[in-house]
């Protein structure tokens, strides 16, 4: 036998990065299932495609940077990035959209900045923004949820749409989006609820008129509200598992709700109410899965509160006055930019240094 020298502490909580990332992936499952139920196989295919591209890109980057590829791949961070990007884009977007987005996220946003832990921006959201401003048409082509469309393309049709742009019967994605909406909305391209409200309000309709549309069955848009609730459930699971702390989701949702409430009080017919803000779009995904990305978020408790409140505020501002219907990606990236400043000014006062401060 021999004696073994080690440095203290000799005890470890034994929950490493990979464990945390696996828990995050697990918590995404309900949301993904909801998306699969309402929007079909597209989301599953996108996730599969994104993860394979991400792993390949990660491995190549690590090799190029002379790092050990196996340990880098095993931390699951690339998988989480890919999955987040895949569930953010329209489920039947062409295959090259997600490939470009994932490559950009992993290669440029993550590894060119130094790999895990060194990236300034949330890779998934940076990739999403790149896609959104480069391919606006593909990136806004959301399908109507199954509650309206009544019929979604099957698995093989989804594969064909993704790869070739046509179903087995020769319909294009645009045709599917039109045909299935039925007589009432025949002429309107199917949009997300937020998109729809934005368009309607811009044309001078009131909120209640806009909400009269068929996609607003339920609270915040048929399908979308359930997806959001599913992500909320996943997020609560993460909270319970102590993977994330309450500060970021709490401050984000709280700020968004407060501003939405103010808007609803002062201009009830022109501005969407709290329910729409919280349960439509990618709000819950952002609050529990995107803004909580530790690498690009603020670190101290106070910093986290400020950072998340900033995201909430930006989401509200961009949704209300910006040019895009949803705003999570932009809000997160802008907040990422502020993190160094936030961290600088929210440094906790070290033990015994209180008198120096005051």
């Amino acid at each position, binding site marked *: *036998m*021999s*004696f*073994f*020298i*080690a*440095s*203290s*502490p*000799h*005890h*470890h*909580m*034994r*929950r*490493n*990065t990979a*464990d*945390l990332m696996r828990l995050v992936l697990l918590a995404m499952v309900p949301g993904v299932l909801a998306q699969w139920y309402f929007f079909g196989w597209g989301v599953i295919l996108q996730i599969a495609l994104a993860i394979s591209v991400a792993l390949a890109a990660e491995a190549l980057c690590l090799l190029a940077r002379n790092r050990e590829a196996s*340990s880098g791949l095993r*931390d699951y*961070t690339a998988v989480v990035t890919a999955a987040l990007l895949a569930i953010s884009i329209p489920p039947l977007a062409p295959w090259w959209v997600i490939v470009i987005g994932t490559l950009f996220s992993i290669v440029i946003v993550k590894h060119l900045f130094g*790999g*895990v*832990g*060194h990236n300034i921006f949330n890779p998934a959201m940076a990739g999403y923004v790149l896609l959104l401003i480069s391919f606006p048409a593909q990136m806004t082509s959301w399908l109507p949820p199954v509650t309206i469309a009544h019929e979604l393309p099957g698995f093989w049709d989804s594969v064909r749409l993704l790869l070739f742009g046509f179903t087995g019967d020769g319909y294009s994605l645009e045709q599917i989006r039109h045909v299935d909406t039925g007589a009432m909305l025949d002429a309107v391209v199917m949009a997300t609820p937020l998109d729809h409200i934005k368009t309607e309000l811009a044309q001078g309709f009131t909120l209640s008129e806009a909400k009269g549309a068929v996609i607003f069955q339920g609270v915040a848009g048929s399908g979308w509200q359930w997806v959001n609730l599913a992500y909320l459930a996943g997020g609560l699971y993460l909270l319970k598992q102590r993977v994330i*702390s309450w500060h970021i989701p709490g401050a984000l949702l709280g700020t968004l709700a407060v501003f939405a409430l103010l808007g609803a009080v002062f201009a009830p017919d022109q501005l969407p109410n709290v329910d729409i803000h919280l349960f439509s779009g990618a709000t819950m995904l952002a609050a529990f899965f995107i803004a909580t990305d*530790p*690498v690009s*978020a603020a*670190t*101290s*408790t106070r910093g*986290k509160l400020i950072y998340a409140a900033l995201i909430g505020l930006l989401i509200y501002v961009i949704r209300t006055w910006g040019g895009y219907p949803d705003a999570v990606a932009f809000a997160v990236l802008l907040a990422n930019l502020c993190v160094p400043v936030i961290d600088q000014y929210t*440094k*906790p*006062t*070290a*033990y*015994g*240094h*209180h*008198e*120096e401060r005051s």
Partner: protein
Amino acid sequence: MSQVQKYNGQDADIQLWTFPGGIHPPERKAPANQEPIRRFPLADEFIIPLRQHIGALSEVQVSVGDHVRKGDLLSAPGIEHGLPVHAPTSGEIIEIGEFPLNHPSGLSGPGIRLRSDHEDTWGQRHPLPDYRNQSHLTVLEHLQRMGIAGLGGAGFPTARKVAGARGIDCLIINGAECEPYIAADDRLMREHAAEIVRGSLILQWMTHASSILIAIEDNKPEAIAAMREAVAQTREQLSAEQQSDFVLKVVVIPTKYPSGGERQLIQILTGKQVPAHGLPADIGILMHNTGTAWAICRAIEHGEPLLERVVTLTGESIGSPCTAWVPLGTPVQHVLAHVDFTPEAQQRVIIGGPMMGFTLPHLQVPVIKTTNCILAPTRKELPPAGQEMPCIRCGACADVCPASLLPQQLYWLANAQDYDGLKAHHLADCIECGACAYVCPSEIPLVQYYRQAKAEMREQAIEHHKAEIARQRFEARQARLEREKEERLERHAQAAKAREEALAARKQQAEQRSASGTTDDAMPDANSDPVASAVARAKARKAEREAARNEESSAVTGTDTVQAQDPKKAAVAAAVARAKARKEAQAAAQKDTETNTEASTPEDKKKAAVAAAVARAKARKAAKQKDEDS
């Protein structure tokens, strides 16, 4: 998480605070705390390191071969208040030299080896039972002589800690023992509660504190009960005056690591923070470990020096985990031999607990005053650290840091060796508790980074200090050489002047002589003339010689006291001459009495040695020259 029953009682009349961060690792105090403190047979040999604590070295007072009794002083306090060490048992001193230290570095240090005679006979003991009638100084000196040091953490000499503390309002007896596995204080409180309380009263008497708070974590209900009972009994014995003089109370604090840290416990009990770079005494607080209070009681009441302590022996590689009284200086190997230690292939033997302890490279290390636990875990029980992954800036470390530091920021700075940045982020306030590394999902050995950075900063400070001194010495030397050169020149000038004057005088006399003509009176003049000139010459020569000698002497000693040294030198020379004369006479006498003609006196030997050395050196130089030439 823990199977230990928690204490449920509430202390209504004392407000507790909390400190930021902290963790709740599995406590695992059982099974080591289940049985009474054991006692093993004495070891055959003891190794007593001279330095067992912070502070200067003590001076050895025994020599090899001496027989000592238990409790005898082995070393005297050093110049700078080093604590003395004592014989842990009776026996013979068999070696004084360098021995492996009980230190994370695995280095060796000065120590004394003692072979036990297994009699364990006590030497003279000097109790101070009437300490209340003595002066504080007497009691402090007594504690210093008894070698009492803090038994909790760094082992700071107790007398110095007490002496340095003034204006103490609150005396805290630290029985928190927050680190997992360790149960030494737990058992001590259960079995020796009364002595701990009496020791606390001695400390109160010395500091005039108005309250004594005995803080215990709520995962030690038996210890709390025992201490409560002892406190109640003591209170009954106290006079009414004393009772109103100060508050004596057991305070139960919630279990959270590291609540036993001095600064953290102060924050829990008072809500105050010790100022950075300050001491608890600055805010009127003095803290001592329960073990220290016990040792003080033994030293005062029985005159027993600190010779043994309670050590926790635990971990799954130890078959019968327990706590035990271990005489200081007992090799770890001897202790482990009595608890069914079955090492695995890559065994860690940790001195201290799992959070802050250090591993041993071998077992020939003595138990010292600060050794509260020997932990031998299996790999399954406490798996070694996994592979270090990149930091993901999750901030979990900052959430648990009890000093409200930013561990991840410190990690980046330590990696970049940005020592100014580390200072600005208060690395010095890190207590190395290990909470950050415990929670780190990337399994980064954060504490190790901090310790290395701290050591590096300390080295830089020392080097800078040394460089500064070297610079001063160099400059002082340069200045001295310069000054001596000037003085030499001046002396030369004076000598030359003296010569000129003498010459002039001679000339003058010659002129006088020639002027006066060859008269009869000229004879004495002619006689006096060479005398005078000779005197002048001699004077000049003497001045020159003196100048040369002064030069040499000041080059040797580097002082200005040339004048003062002359008589001293003369005295020395005279002494040497006397000694030589005596030696010669002796040698002569010897020659007369003995027929041994060899008579190689030490002087001759020395001369021969010098000659040999010179020859060696010459040969070496010649060889070198040759090497260089070829």
